[in-house]
């Protein structure tokens, strides 16, 4: 085990990883939309040459808002198959990371139907099919973004009768898309010894000193940063990681529409 770790970390020092990549390149991932026929929006992610890793399905219901002019967004992350306590804890961590870094910036006002009375409840449900999936946070954020792009909501108009105070929801023609212009994606930059590494595999994650998750939007603005793992970082390491993350995000946003993403930084 120790010797396997040494082989991996030496390889990273020499810029030759166990699958032939350099430390600043990712694997090619493919995202397919509309895989769940019974959901208004869904997406499935898989790494090239692998079976599907992550499936995300969205469902919409009409409910009562908590905040006057906003809708409700609910995220759930499940691991397919038997989960041990450690898996459940890990999933809870992943869920809170994604909520803080990504869904916090979701424009909930677009889900409002009648302020204070009726709103859309958007359920985002993620199923992880591979127990050893790596770089989960980044991949889940990309799957969620694609699933939200795919969602078609019934166009509605909320009407309140001024006299009787009764509410009606009128269903208009056509469907509406969810606005995700402001929604950031999350990318992870890891530190192994002194190198910044992107898109870790499961074995490499076991050797990572620290992980920095960056939440970056279309315009390249960093919305949030969260650090995982107990390793310590110097300030310039964080700054260089931030620059790397910005470049990665730019690549991802340009490739997201094509359904096939692979980035390689020099």
């Amino acid at each position, binding site marked *: 085990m120790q010797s396997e770790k040494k082989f991996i970390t030496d390889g990273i020092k020499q810029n030759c990883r166990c699958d032939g990549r350099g430390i600043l390149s990712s694997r090619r991932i493919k995202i397919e939309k509309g895989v769940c026929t019974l959901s208004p929006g869904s997406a499935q992610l898989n790494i090239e040459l692998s079976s599907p890793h992550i499936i995300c399905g969205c*469902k919409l219901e009409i409910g009562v808002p908590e905040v006057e002019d906003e809708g409700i967004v609910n995220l759930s992350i499940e691991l*397919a*198959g038997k989960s041990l306590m450690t898996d459940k804890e890990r999933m809870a961590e992943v869920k809170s990371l994604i909520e803080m870094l990504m869904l916090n910036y979701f424009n909930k006002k677009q889900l409002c139907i009648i302020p204070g009375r009726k709103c859309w409840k958007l359920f985002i449900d993620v*199923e992880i099919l591979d127990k050893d999936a790596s770089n989960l946070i980044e991949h889940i954020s990309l799957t969620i973004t694609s699933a939200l792009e795919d969602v078609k909501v019934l166009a509605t108009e909320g009407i309140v009768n001024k006299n009787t105070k009764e509410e009606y929801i009128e269903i208009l023609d056509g469907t509406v898309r969810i606005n995700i212009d402001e929604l950031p994606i999350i990318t992870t930059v890891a530190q192994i010894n002194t190198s910044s590494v992107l898109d870790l595999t499961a074995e490499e994650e076991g050797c990572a000193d620290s992980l920095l998750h960056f939440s970056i939007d279309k315009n390249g603005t960093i919305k949030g940063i969260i650090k995982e793992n107990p390793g310590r970082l110097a300030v310039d390491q964080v700054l260089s990681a931030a620059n790397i993350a910005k470049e990665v995000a730019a690549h991802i946003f340009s490739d997201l529409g094509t359904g096939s993403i692979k980035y390689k930084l020099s």
Partner: protein
Amino acid sequence: MTEEILFYGFRQDGRRPGELRQIKIKLGVVDNSSGSALFQIGHTSVLAFIHGPKQTKHEKESGHIHCYFNTAYFSSSGERRKFSKGDKKSNEFEANVRTMFESVVLMENNPHSDIDIHVLVLADDGSVECAAINAITLSLIHAGVPLKDFLVSCSSGFYSGMPLIDLTYSESTSFQVISEYRVAVLGKSLQIAYLNYDDIGGHKLTPEVVREITAMAIEGCKQVHFIMKQELQNACSN
């Protein structure tokens, strides 16, 4: 909902009473497992994967089959599901799978090995347990686990004097239809290994009706068995 179940002899999705929905099978859909399969019938889609045969927890313990049945939150036809696991129906099904498959899997070949069966329902348009049983059989075959025979399953119902095969979600949940009658048989001998019927309409089952819907379900199983064997042949010749 008072929709017409049968309209001039045709069902809501255009099928005849004795017609199965289209079946699609894919093997090897979960890389990180011993064997896996995706079974789709109509809009119903169920994924099954196996971990095992592997060492039991304690050394000389005899091996068992464990089933973990989960339903994705986005799988339901209408509203989002409230529970994905742990509800009464799932627990009952997990216990049924264990007894069913322990009689079909040749456990004596690997006496101290456990087999973990994981099922994930991706889309529920009726007859989900039947699709799950079929997916489990395919994934066990894919994993190379020795089996006495295929275990195939199909659902049936009864409406207006006519038996219906392979029910959709709206047919299963309609109070007018006697549903959902689920049967699983061994592929060659057609012996019944599993039979489950939960009725919500308060119908009375006469022996005549039972005979007809059982025959219909077994007929469906025969067709499913044939299609499964064909798909496996095609998958292997590639």
